[in-house]
């Protein structure tokens, strides 16, 4: 898996099942290793990707993920974009409250994922679904 990563192009992966969540984790880990993130940061970004991929699957009804390497001149990083065309998130503030869940989880996935990465952007609406972009920079 790691050997075949072409860093020049974004790596896309569909999220349709639990197995795809595992694939997303492996893909993100491979890219994180390739941009030389520390072991702690690798684990953090992989865990954040796992949370968001599962949200995409469970709440967004499936979607896609795109993993790219980014470079701001000084540092390299991993950028992951999750897109679904689900019902969107009605109340963002509530969704980011620790312990709040509409499913059966711990209610920490979304808020926890935001704490695990360096940059976190979310666009959501009932019409177009949800798009989350996260970035983790190497130190």
């Amino acid at each position, binding site marked *: 898996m790691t050997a075949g990563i072409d860093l020049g192009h974004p790596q896309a992966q569909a999220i349709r099942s639990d197995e795809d969540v*595992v694939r997303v984790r492996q893909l993100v880990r491979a890219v994180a290793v390739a941009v030389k993130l520390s072991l702690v940061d690798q*684990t953090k970004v992989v865990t954040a990707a796992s949370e968001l991929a599962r949200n995409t699957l469970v709440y967004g009804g499936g979607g896609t993920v795109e993993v790219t390497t980014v470079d701001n001149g000084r540092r390299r990083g991993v950028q992951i974009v999750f897109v679904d065309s689900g019902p969107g998130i009605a109340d963002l503030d509530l969704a980011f409250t620790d312990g709040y869940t509409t499913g059966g*989880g711990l209610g920490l*996935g979304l808020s*926890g994922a935001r*704490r*695990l990465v360096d940059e976190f952007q979310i666009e959501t609406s009932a019409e177009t679904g949800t798009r989350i972009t996260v970035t983790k920079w190497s130190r």
Partner: protein
Amino acid sequence: MALSAEESGRLAALLGGHAEQVTQRWTEIVAGSLRGRLSQAELRRQVQDLHSAIVTTSKQGVIDLSAENAAELRAALSELSRGRARQGFSATETAISIFALKEVLAGLAEEAGGATALRDYVAFSNLVDELGLFTFESFVRTRESLIADQAEQLLELSTPVVKLWEGVVAVPLVGTLDSARAQVVMERLLQTLVDTGSPYAIIDITGVPAVDTQVAQHILKTVVAARLMGADCIISGIRPQIAQTIVALGIEFGDIATKATLADALRHVLRLNGVETARRQPRRDV
């Protein structure tokens, strides 16, 4: 892409009339592509089966692979691809066994000549394509069922509950902890607790690459279930990067004892039981 009755009749005549020549040439082509990984006799038998299935079906008139009367032909094709998939041949090598018939037919059509030869060849060729695609699909289906079997075997393999000490059992978790595996782990652990009457269980997550909220939730549920049965759980194998991730995520393990290594967890349990584990001092020569 079905063959009309007349075309089928001509195909039956073409293949049936030159049976020996067809199977001979067909076997040669396929044998060439498989490079001796299948015995000549077995290959010949497979080709003869296919040949007779095609001839029988085409004698009955219209060949339509999805029709009732093509059942025998479908069975022969499925049989071939199942065998190939299980023996580890590639999809291409499997499909070539069918597509080789095109080359045979081309040779025959050339010999026969006549006004309809070209049009017939195109129609036959389309039929062979259809047969090839069918083989392909059966091949993929077989492979998928193989993979599903293996996944199930893996599920069985990867969740042993081991006895570490009198009254102490441990579950070394390895790999991804999805819902299905978490369920298996919980069942195994609870059953082992009953069977051995152990008051302590250690869940070791050294082999889990990422602990996200779902994994944490599965572990927490297992711990609560074990507690309900009167057993105490200790979670071990929490590496530095996992610890930092758990903190950032905001997961709380509450009053569940956690340790960095399995050895620490075992020592912790033994101490609770009043067993002293003294480190032996190296003897010094005076």
